[in-house]
């Protein structure tokens, strides 16, 4: 079982992706999708040796909701700054230490921070486990770090580690 499914999460995601793409849950689609999912996850096992573990799947929904809300909010905020004829954002770099070490969780955090307009994940330093983030319009650095820590990192720690 373990040999056939080295990456159960990835396989499930791929099967889901296939079915959404086909817009059908007919037997043929499920069968073909499963073959592709298992084959691809076997191939992925050569590249990503450690499997992804999701401890609390239900928290993923909460994470998605929080991220969605933040994306809408920061889109509006960025639109306001750019709507100004002479935009004067207070841009700044932030270097913060992360407790998160799981590769997959870090990737999710990078996607979320980058998907939110106004903040961009630039570089992760594995030796010091610090991340360099560029913020478009920074009001308060300490406050911003706390937001990332409490809103995202705490949740990701619960889900993945």
């Amino acid at each position, binding site marked *: 079982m373990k040999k056939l499914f080295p990456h159960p999460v990835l396989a499930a995601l791929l099967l889901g992706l296939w079915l959404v793409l086909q817009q059908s849950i007919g037997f043929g689609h499920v069968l073909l999708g499963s073959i592709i999912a298992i084959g691809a996850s076997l191939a992925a096992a050569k590249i990503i040796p450690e499997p992804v573990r999701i401890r609390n799947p239900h928290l993923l929904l909460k994470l998605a909701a929080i991220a969605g809300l933040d994306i809408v909010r920061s889109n509006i905020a960025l639109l306001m700054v750019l709507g100004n004829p002479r935009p004067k954002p207070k841009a700044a770099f932030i270097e913060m230490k992360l407790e998160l070490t799981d590769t997959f969780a870090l990737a999710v955090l990078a996607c979320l921070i980058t998907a939110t307009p106004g903040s961009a994940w630039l*570089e992760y330093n594995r030796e010091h486990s610090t991340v360099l983030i560029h913020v478009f319009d920074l009001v308060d650095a300490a406050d911003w770090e706390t937001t990332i820590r409490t809103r995202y990192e705490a949740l990701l720690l619960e889900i993945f580690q």
Partner: protein
Amino acid sequence: MSPDLPLWLAILVSLFVFLGALLTMAGCLGLVRLKTFYLRIHAPTMGTSMGGGLILLASAIYFSITRERPIFHEIIIFAFVTVTTPVTLMLLARATLFRDRVEGSAEIPQRDA
């Protein structure tokens, strides 16, 4: 085009498309208007997050109604855009960071060895 689409829904779909296009355009204009690389990387994110999201949402609603079954391919497009943006961003950003550090730019946080 489609007689099956009720007026209020047509208005809703158009509103989503319009708002999405507006956000995407604001992002593109920002890319042109902002002065430095680090500021510029933020502007197009509006297009890849909410701008694109609203257009995709409008597309999902429109085709779900006119084809009379739920259509949500759009979720995949959104997921792929969200997952692939950081890859390009990090590639560009790290190249720029490297260059700026070699040049000894004072604004860039140095990598402590």
